[in-house]
């Protein structure tokens, strides 16, 4: 007797979860990410996808992959820890903002209002994960090569708005602002998964709504392999790791 098991691509499953979540009011969603460290190969495709999607300049990194070499020869291994923003439930960065420029949306994503942020960088000192960067007004080509490459000045679509950085306008937002990963809310709101999720070649990253018991993230987050970074600080990250 053969048993028919329905198989479904993880991406299709996540897209279905996403669509289901988007049907609900925003305050009933809790966007979360699960990263399976056994599947991560350290290719940094997520980091590159994030750079390309958000058009982040030099010095601004929403996502990095921390590489660690463990053990001694001949018993050596490498361990990779992708680090987006943890989108904490109790974000220390939000609490310290003197102008309420950064806040936690009802769906759990911590955002920055570029039009209000005064650039004091208190949030950078407060984040226990180093997940925030300050935009110092650097460009990959402008000032370094005779011609300014288009990608240096092409806009990013963060927060569903156009943000264009210009080498001649170093006092205009988002230059001079704190910047961070937004779980690509501009994509989510169009029914797309965050760039780092779609690009992950090892299938190590899963995204979805933590308030939906049927979603893949909830099922994976229930694994005994699950950990969160710096739990002892009480920040309650929305990013879960599977060891």
């Amino acid at each position, binding site marked *: 007797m053969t048993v028919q098991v329905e198989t479904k691509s993880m991406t299709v499953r996540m897209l279905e979860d996403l669509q289901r979540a988007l049907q609900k009011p925003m305050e009933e969603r809790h966007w979360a990410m699960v990263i399976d460290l056994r599947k991560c190969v350290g290719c940094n495709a997520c*980091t590159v996808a994030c750079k390309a999607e958000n058009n982040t300049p*030099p*010095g*601004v*990194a929403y996502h*990095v*992959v*921390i*590489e*660690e070499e463990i053990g001694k020869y001949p018993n050596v291994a490498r361990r990779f*820890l992708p*680090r987006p923003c943890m989108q904490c439930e109790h974000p*220390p960065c939000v*609490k*310290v*903002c*003197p*102008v*309420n*420029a950064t806040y936690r949306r009802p769906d759990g994503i911590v955002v920055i209002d570029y039009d*209000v*942020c*005064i*650039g*004091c*960088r*208190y949030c*950078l*000192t*407060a*984040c*226990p*994960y*180093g997940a*925030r*960067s*300050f*935009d*110092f*007004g*650097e460009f990959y080509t402008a000032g370094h090569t005779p011609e300014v490459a288009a990608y240096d000045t092409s806009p990013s679509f963060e927060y569903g708005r156009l943000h264009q950085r210009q080498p001649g306008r*170093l*006092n205009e*937002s988002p*230059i*001079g*602002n*704190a910047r961070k990963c937004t779980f690509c809310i501009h994509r989510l709101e169009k029914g797309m998964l965050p760039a780092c999720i779609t690009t992950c070649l090892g299938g190590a990253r899963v995204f979805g709504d933590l308030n939906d018991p049927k979603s893949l993230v909830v099922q994976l987050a229930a694994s005994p392999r699950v950990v969160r*970074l710096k739990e002892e*600080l009480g920040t309650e990250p929305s990013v879960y790791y599977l060891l």
Partner: protein
Amino acid sequence: MRKRLWLILALGVIAFGIGVVGMLDRLQYGLRNVGYGSPIPWALWVVFYIYFIGLSAGAFLISSLVYVFGFKQFEAIGRIAVFTALIALITALLFIWVDLGHMERFTEVFARPGFHSPLAWIVWLYTAYFFLLLAEAWFLMRRSFARGAKQGGFKGGLYRILALGTKEGTPADEERDLKVVRVLGSIGVPLAIAFHGGTGTVFAVTIARAYWYSGLFPLLFLVSALASGGALLTAVAAFIIPNGYRRHQDLVISLGRLLLILLLVEVLMEVAEFLVSLYGTAPAHTAPIQEQLFGPNWWIFWLLGLVGAVGLPMLVLVTAGRRSGLAVGIVALLSAICFVGIRWNIVLPGFVLPELPGLEHALVEPHLNYLERYVPSLMEWQVSAFAVGVALILFAIGYHLLPLEREAGGETWQKQEVSQ
């Protein structure tokens, strides 16, 4: 203007001249040319900011000894202390203002304050303190303005404006003014404790930085403020008041004793902080201390902090400083200047470890380089020179124009006018 004020003015103008280029760079290119980055988001300007805000709080609290707690022996420096507190406050705010990514948006702190942020609180408190200082200075000097308005020339005209219609008044009126000053000073004392303790709290609530995350930090800020502000005022009393260290030998030596006590408390707190942090094995606690003691900038701790700000002054204060106003003045000046090293070691060691191990190798880009040792850029030094230049110029001109030196039996400025 006196020779010493000319000297301060000249230093101020030179610093301003050196700094103005950096300031233009700052205005045109924003923060692109600073030496710090996201791994070390607070650096030289924040160091200077807490240094000057400490000087202001310290100077003000010393002035309250005269006007609130009735220590008459310090009366000669009462007005000078309030004036110094005002200049130091302006300088501190200038430093933190240029450090903002969007200088033009500083008003947002008033328009939409985040009251869960200690930073918002202290800005509000600084504002209240600024107006309180202005009011206190005016009530202290308004009768002098009224009397001085009779003299001709620029100074007379200025005093007429500053008097805001005040009459010369009787000694009873002056007494009444001093009562107002006492009330203002009484409000000012908790305010100064709140805003400077609050400045320490900005650091102390940062759970991400184990070095700062301590209940001792706000108190350490207060003690450092008192010690550095006290040292500055002692130096001003000794060297800016003409022949101060001779004419006011008793005052300067008394201030020296006060400074000695404050320095002792400072040492006590630092020792407590260091020993407790070093005892454990957690790098988040031990690394910032080891960095100060043995890191590449070891000399900031040993030479500026331990020898310059604390050790040598204490040694002199318990020996030659018991008799010589000049000796007290010299070490007080040394201490006041070297305190900037203690301030450096409050801010920078907080960033010695990356937030997550391995983050330093994850991505290395301009302004995102955990491996690079922070060295302030030329532009940062220039802007610092600009701000210090502004402070020195304001101090020299203000000191020259305002009736700050009051002595028993009359106004010094009157004597000066006569002697001229």
